[in-house]
């Protein structure tokens, strides 16, 4: 029996389920109590004091984001006392925030800025000493500016409770308190995996990606450089959000047009690279199943996951597929096959990947990601960075016509498209592996068991008489569970897909940031993922191995999956890395 309670908020009667907080009850009544530190189910700590309300009969104010509604409660959310207190609180938060709105990457999408506007803050009543911390921009992926931090601890909650990494926490005491890493080292030198989930959680500009916008513009303006761009599947279903389109709108056509207008010489599709990854990975999997190499095999296209594995499970790295990730493979192809075939000097080619991910910036900078002296991918920019570049180029995105990716190599299967969501890589791989093992074309190619939001999904397939157990995992907390199982020798699986970001790449650290209110009421992951599945459904070619580009690549260059040429360009190695590389002293 569901129990309900009735309470009054701002003279409105509201009936809610028992256990609902005042904040949620207010929302039901159409009352929008301001919050800053509240992140539903991740960070519910009552730190920022913005949500305080008056409850009749109680001393002081109640914290509405935590306080549960009780029968007969009378709540007031904007009495003069509450407003004065809230105003002072906001003032105090702003007084220690480096106000750089004009030049901050979050301007326009900053929760603090929105509150300041909502409360018509015109001057800081209580200016005072401000924190002076050096900005941590040592890593290739992420930049940490504590001077903008408002100590809401949403990042800590995400890193500690959602991802279960715990690379950052609150250190020191008193005015010196700040959010940092072990002994205040750079994120680059500790157990941070660059998954970027903290950026998605941060309400201000305290955390953001290391930008490569200027680098890319420089290359684009250079007449001598042949700039090639490729875009990940997850980008096209999120980019539109930066232009006020509904979440999950597929803007592939406009995106391609925009990229062309920006001056890229070729605009390719990472989905094609994904197909290539499937060719190699399915082949590798079949080889392992047939006896060569350890099982379970684990996907390796998520660089945040790879970094996590190298730092924490260095002795189990042989489980990772030796395949490079799609954009790295594709980059390698561009600088070899494509350059040769179309007579372009490979040293003059600059490959740029647009990714939903900040760990890819780290990935493309890894030493081994090059062949014969040419980096597979020169620069990675995030979905957010691309949107800024489009705006900088004065392109009115919403008015653009649609265009297709460039040929050659412009075709990609539906299987490549679903890489962007958790379960997508697995489904794509199964489609190819099953056809290969069964030696026929299987019609039922949608595997619902690996779709959806659960952190760990499993399925058992019967392929050519063999039972194959698969698992699909997203979020590093779940990755840990898988690895512990493998460590104890108890893993029942043959093939595991692991994505560092909960929900897969559509929820990556480089995607448009959604504020806490949106995250609490909208299933962003589902909207974006469904859009990718829709692309797959509408695709004519839905299996990687049926993509004619694949035939072309293998016939003309790689010979066959797993060949010597394939290994030279499309495969990589991993090394155990120390968890901490701290500076002395």
């Amino acid at each position, binding site marked *: 029996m569901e129990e309900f309670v009735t309470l009054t908020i701002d003279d409105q009667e509201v009936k809610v389920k028992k256990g609902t907080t005042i904040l949620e009850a207010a929302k039901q009544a159409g009352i929008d109590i301001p919050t800053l530190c509240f992140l539903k189910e991740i960070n519910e700590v*009552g730190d920022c004091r913005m949500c305080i309300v008056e409850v009749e009969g109680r001393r*002081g104010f109640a914290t509405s984001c935590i306080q549960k509604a009780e029968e007969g409660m009378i709540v007031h959310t904007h009495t003069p006392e509450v407003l004065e*207190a809230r105003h*002072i609180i906001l003032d105090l938060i702003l007084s220690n925030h480096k106000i750089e709105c004009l030049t901050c990457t979050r301007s326009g999408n900053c929760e603090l800025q929105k509150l300041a506007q909502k409360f018509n803050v015109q001057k800081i009543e209580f200016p005072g000493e401000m924190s002076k911390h050096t900005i941590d921009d040592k890593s290739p992926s992420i930049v940490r500016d504590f001077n903008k931090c408002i100590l809401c601890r949403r990042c800590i909650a995400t890193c500690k409770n959602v991802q279960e990494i715990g690379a950052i926490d609150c250190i020191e005491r008193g005015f010196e308190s700040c959010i940092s890493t072990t002994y205040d080292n750079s994120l680059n030198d500790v157990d941070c995996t660059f998954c970027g989930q903290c950026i998605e959680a941060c309400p201000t500009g305290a955390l953001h990606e290391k930008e490569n916008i200027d680098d890319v513009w420089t290359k684009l303006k250079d007449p001598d450089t042949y700039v090639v761009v490729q875009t990940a599947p997850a980008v096209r279903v999120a980019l539109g959000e930066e232009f006020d389109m509904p979440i999950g709108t597929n803007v592939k056509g406009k995106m391609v047009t925009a990229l062309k207008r920006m001056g890229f010489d070729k605009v390719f599709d990472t989905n094609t690279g994904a197909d290539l990854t499937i060719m190699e990975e399915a082949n590798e999997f079949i080889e392992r199943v047939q006896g060569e190499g350890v099982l379970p095999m684990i996907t390796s296209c998520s660089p945040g996951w790879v970094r996590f594995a190298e730092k924490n499970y260095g002795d189990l790295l042989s489980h990772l597929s030796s395949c490079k990730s799609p954009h790295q493979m594709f980059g390698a192809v561009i600088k070899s096959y494509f350059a040769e075939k179309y007579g372009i000097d490979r040293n003059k080619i600059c490959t740029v990947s647009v990714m939903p991910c900040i760990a890819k910036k780290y990935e493309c900078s890894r030493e081994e990601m090059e062949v014969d002296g040419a980096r597979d991918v020169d620069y990675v920019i995030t979905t957010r960075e691309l949107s800024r570049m489009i705006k900088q180029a004065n392109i009115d995105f919403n008015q653009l016509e649609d265009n297709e990716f460039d040929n050659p190599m412009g075709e990609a299967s539906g299987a490549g498209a679903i890489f962007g969501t958790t379960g997508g890589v697995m489904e794509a791989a199964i489609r190819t592996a099953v056809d290969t093992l069964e030696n026929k074309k299987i019609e039922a190619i949608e595997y619902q068991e690996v779709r959806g939001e659960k952190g760990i999904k499993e399925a058992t397939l019967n392929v050519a008489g063999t039972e194959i157990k698969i698992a699909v995992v997203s979020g590093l907390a779940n990755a840990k569970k898988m690895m512990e199982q493998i460590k104890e020798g108890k893993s029942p699986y043959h093939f595991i897909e692991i994505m560092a970001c909960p929900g897969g790449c559509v929820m990556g650290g480089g995607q448009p940031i959604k504020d806490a209110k949106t995250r609490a009421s909208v299933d962003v992951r589902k909207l974006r993922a469904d859009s990718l599945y829709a692309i797959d459904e509408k695709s004519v070619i839905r299996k990687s191995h049926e993509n004619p580009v694949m035939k072309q690549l293998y016939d003309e260059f790689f010979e066959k999956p797993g060949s010597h040429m394939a290994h030279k360009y499309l495969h990589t190695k991993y090394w155990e890395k120390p968890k901490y590389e701290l500076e002395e002293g």
Partner: protein
Amino acid sequence: MLEILEKLCNGEGTEYDIYRLEKLAINIKKASVCGLGQSAPNPVLSTLRYFREEFKEHAIDKKCRTNECKKIAKIEIDPEKCKGCSLCQKHCPVDAIEGEARETRVINQEKCIKCGTCIASCPFHAIQ
């Protein structure tokens, strides 16, 4: 709150600062998470309640009547009590005391570093 108090003790505060201090203290008391935060403004609120005059002196007159706040402390020799014995002058580490022979001594406020040595050395308790 601390910064406003520091301003007051340094002689840089204004009467408006007293108002701001009180407003801040009252609201922090109401909006805090735990008992420590709720009671942290108590020393401010109670001293304001009973010794508001002293706050005003700090803010408006830039004076600290006990001379504890060194930046605005003012050490003066009471001419009625001073016997001109010159002990204070001899003890002053920066030669800030003026006067000769049996003259009433006077402290040069520009030179004075408010160390209080003269107060301790005066046998007639003529220095405040």
